[in-house]
């Protein structure tokens, strides 16, 4: 099963909507609760990253019998130094975003800790692709 969800940059009102849909879908399919929890932490953080940093994006979710694969493709400023961005505490979020309690530099480390396989590719000035795979 493959699902696609558009995400609008700056739309904090709907941040987490995709994560919520995927969580419900995984529950319906009877996926192990621990895997659901990890996947939702990783997906939510990646979804919020599109909202906080990009102009827009598309989240593709592929659910198989043995794993979930999620690709988050955004059009945005891109990440110049991915290793730096992966470091806990590093953030380029705006003051407004930080005021909401986001942008503490914990997002990407959270994604990494909650993914079995994580791939991040980025082109400055074009956008970023985050791929998360979790096995059941």
């Amino acid at each position, binding site marked *: 099963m493959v699902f696609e969800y558009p995400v609008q940059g700056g739309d904090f009102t709907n941040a*987490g909507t995709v*994560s919520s849909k995927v*969580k419900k879908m995984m529950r319906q399919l009877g996926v192990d609760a621990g895997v659901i*929890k990890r996947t939702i932490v990783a997906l939510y953080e990646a979804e*919020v990253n599109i909202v906080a940093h990009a102009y827009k994006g598309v989240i593709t979710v592929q659910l198989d019998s043995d794993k979930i694969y999620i690709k988050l493709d955004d059009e945005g400023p891109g990440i110049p130094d991915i290793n730096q961005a992966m470091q806990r505490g590093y953030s380029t979020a705006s003051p407004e975003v930080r005021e909401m*309690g986001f942008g503490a530099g*914990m997002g990407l480390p*959270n994604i990494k800790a909650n993914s079995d396989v994580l791939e991040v590719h980025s082109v400055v000035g074009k956008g970023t692709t985050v791929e998360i795979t979790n096995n059941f």
Partner: protein
Amino acid sequence: MTVKELAEKMNLKIFCGETNLDRTIEGCYVSDLLSDVMGNAKSGMAWITLQTHQNVAAIASLKDLSCIILVKGFEPEEDTLQHAVEEEIPVLGTSQQTFETAGQVYQLIC
């Protein structure tokens, strides 16, 4: 202890979630950083925060938290309330500071 018992003992204001107050509180997490809560809170926990925007309800729902406790007299924004009602998350409030609130919750549930 249930959310209802905690609300009664601490005289918390109930903004929404009256029909879900029978949930058992399993621990508590105190943080205003959303990624911190996302990464570290466990299901069933009560969440003490001063953040009032809608993403708080989204996180509480995604993490299966038992309730949200807003401190310092803060009230949930309208869309937070709406989202919390939809997701059946009780949102409670107190005029106390975070320190006193967390201390009382600790004494009551630990």
